[in-house]
């Protein structure tokens, strides 16, 4: 046999061996899976969420677990790629036999597994997928955050009622469902309230040059500029907004979380909606931020807070159900009505939490650093 044949044989042998390596589950623990993007484009969000979930699990286990059983958390990395999410889901459900899954982070990943989670009666709670249709698949699918339509409405309402804006411009990422969902809902609500969206411009993920779009936007002279995207892109857009001398205040959504650490002075005077503010004067928030900072040496972002909440919501529902029967757990999930880090959480009939959103304003502190100051609360 030649060298390559030996190699080919070896590959086959390893592959075959690997197929039979499924492992049996233990009895004295409750298995929960987490699907988060630990690597890939949005790994910054995924690692923080994972850390927060892990922290919540450690806390629960330190207190003796759920009804005397320890939680075993199994984390899978999906790289924010729906194909990998499906594989991770299959592994968690068929090999590890988890009863609940915390994830996925992005809406497109969550959407790729909701149907099967429902069919297999696995409780799924996404900490952060805001797309409206995520929970449509059925009564086993929950989320810990509010959805796009609520958030779009919050920002639109804020723009009209607090900022008295009449004309709005929107600059959004046409290739990103998150950005598009917010665009749609903001526009709908803003026009419903009597305002006018004078111009909508778009770009693709990864674009760096927004001058052409901004030149057009400037020509329409809007009162506010809504930019529903993540902070990394927003910080880039904001610089070009200022260099083009557009005076309208910028508005954003929860993707702007952490903008204060990632942008310069050009974002001062902008507003965005968020799930929580780490500076908020609230005992739960303070406690969470303190513990997280002690453990991981960084200030937790909103997704971390949501991951932490999602874990507690699920754990408490399992505790109340008193068994690992997921049909009981899902009923108990619906009975959730408690104050968590990101606010009072109660699920509506579509298993979306009914909770208020915070509007924050980017301000320049006395030390020259940017801070996110409380600018108002919008109730559902």
């Amino acid at each position: 046999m030649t060298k390559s044949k030996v190699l080919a044989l070896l590959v086959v042998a390893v592959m075959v061996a690997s197929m039979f390596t499924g492992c049996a589950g233990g009895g004295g623990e409750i298995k929960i899976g987490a699907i988060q993007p630990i690597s890939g484009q949005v790994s910054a969000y995924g690692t923080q969420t994972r850390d927060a979930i892990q922290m919540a699990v450690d806390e629960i286990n330190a207190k003796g677990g759920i009804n005397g059983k320890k939680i075993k958390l199994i984390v899978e990395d999906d790289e924010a790629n729906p194909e990998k999410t499906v594989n991770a889901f299959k592994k968690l459900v068929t090999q590890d036999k988890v009863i609940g899954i915390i994830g996925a982070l992005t809406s497109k990943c969550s959407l790729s597994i909701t149907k099967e989670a429902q069919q297999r009666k696995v409780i799924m709670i996404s900490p952060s997928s805001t797309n409206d249709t995520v929970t449509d698949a059925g009564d086993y699918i929950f989320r810990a955050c509010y959805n796009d339509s609520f958030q779009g409405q919050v920002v639109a309402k804020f723009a009209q009622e607090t900022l008295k804006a009449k004309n709005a411009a929107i600059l959004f990422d046409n290739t990103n469902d998150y950005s598009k969902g917010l665009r749609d809902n903001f526009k709908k609500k803003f026009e419903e309230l009597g305002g006018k969206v004078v111009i909508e411009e778009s770009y693709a993920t990864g674009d760096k040059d927004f001058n052409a779009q901004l030149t057009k936007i400037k020509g329409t002279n809007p009162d506010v500029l809504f930019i529903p995207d993540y902070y990394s892109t927003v910080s880039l857009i904001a610089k070009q907004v200022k260099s083009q001398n557009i005076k309208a205040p910028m508005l954003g959504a929860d993707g702007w979380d952490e903008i204060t650490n990632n942008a310069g002075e050009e974002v001062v005077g902008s507003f965005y909606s968020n799930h929580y503010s780490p500076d908020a004067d609230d005992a739960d928030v303070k406690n969470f931020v303190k513990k997280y900072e002690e453990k991981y040496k960084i200030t937790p972002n909103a997704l971390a807070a949501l991951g932490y909440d999602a874990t507690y919501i699920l754990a408490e529902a399992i505790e109340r159900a008193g068994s690992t029967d997921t049909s009981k757990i899902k009923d108990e999930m619906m009975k959730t009505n408690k104050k968590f880090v990101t606010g009072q959480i109660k699920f509506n009939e579509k298993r979306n939490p009914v909770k208020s959103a915070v509007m924050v304003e980017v301000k320049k502190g006395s030390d020259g650093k940017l801070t996110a100051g409380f600018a108002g609360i919008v109730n559902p």
Partner: protein
Amino acid sequence: MKKNRFFNAITLTVTSASLYILLALLIFTGIIDEYNGQLLTLAGIYVIVSLSLNLITGFTGQLALGHAGFMAVGAYSTAIIIMRLNVPMIPAVFAGGLITAIFGLLIGIPTLRLRGDYLAITTLGFGEIIRVIMVNLEGLTGGAAGLKGVPPFSDSGDFILDAVIKFSWVYGFVIFTLVVVSNLIKSSPGRAIISIREDEIASNSMGINVPYYKMFSFTMSAFLAGIGGGLYAIYFGYLNPQMFGFLNSVNFVVIVVLGGMGSITGTILAGIGFTYIQEWLRIFKDFRLVIFGLALISVMLFWPKGLMGTNEISVVKLVRKYFFKNKNSDNSSSGSPASGESQSEGVR
């Protein structure tokens, strides 16, 4: 000669059928669990698309970097045909393949007259344009939010049975692709295609219509990639333009290169291996892609022929050797049946 051909056909049918029965039984009894069954099925789709890429890159010698784009066309058109027109699955998959072939034809006409490098870049650009189109044709494709609710292969409610059915369909299409590709390269157009790889100018002067055969191979390749895409759509039930990015195209190139450009068995082995390795390498997080890149470079530098070079593992020879003690003197040799259904008797 005729008897030989008959013998070959029987051997291959029996091998592929028994391998199928074996694997299906293992999945059915749960010895191969659902997760591995899933990976095996996914590997089948990877093998189909990689084989299609091998046809144009390995056998014709033209590097194409947009096969994820072809897959996207196949996936979206199959899904839309099933969902909007209520066409049954099999005709829909073939229709998806045909639509992709038309796309291939349209892309190929301007570029295949030119040198190979242009094809690489144009196909890359094509992949990007397809993404832009998929995002903007919102009414049809669901845009950036993706296309939900493509009906699955089967929805019996029994997960094990579903897994077996899923696997069976994909396996069937893998066999179909294998039959098409291996017969194609043994046919007269296939010889022409290989001669283009070996020396374009020489084959031109031998009277081979080079642009025509390049076109032929490219369109065929697009057709098969489209079929792979169609299966992918049904398999996942959810499509998103971002699932078909440039890196996915590169994945297929990696498979073909690792398996050996111009080897069908190599592609099969590398395709299955790649699917599994991707899962294992998840623990390396972002290092995974660094490893891929280094692997690609080192294979090209130190082992340019890949796993198999242009050689094949022939089941027929194997069966002859071990069951009939009927040694023949053909230059291709035997080895493991591996994923079984390889049938080419060595390309050269």
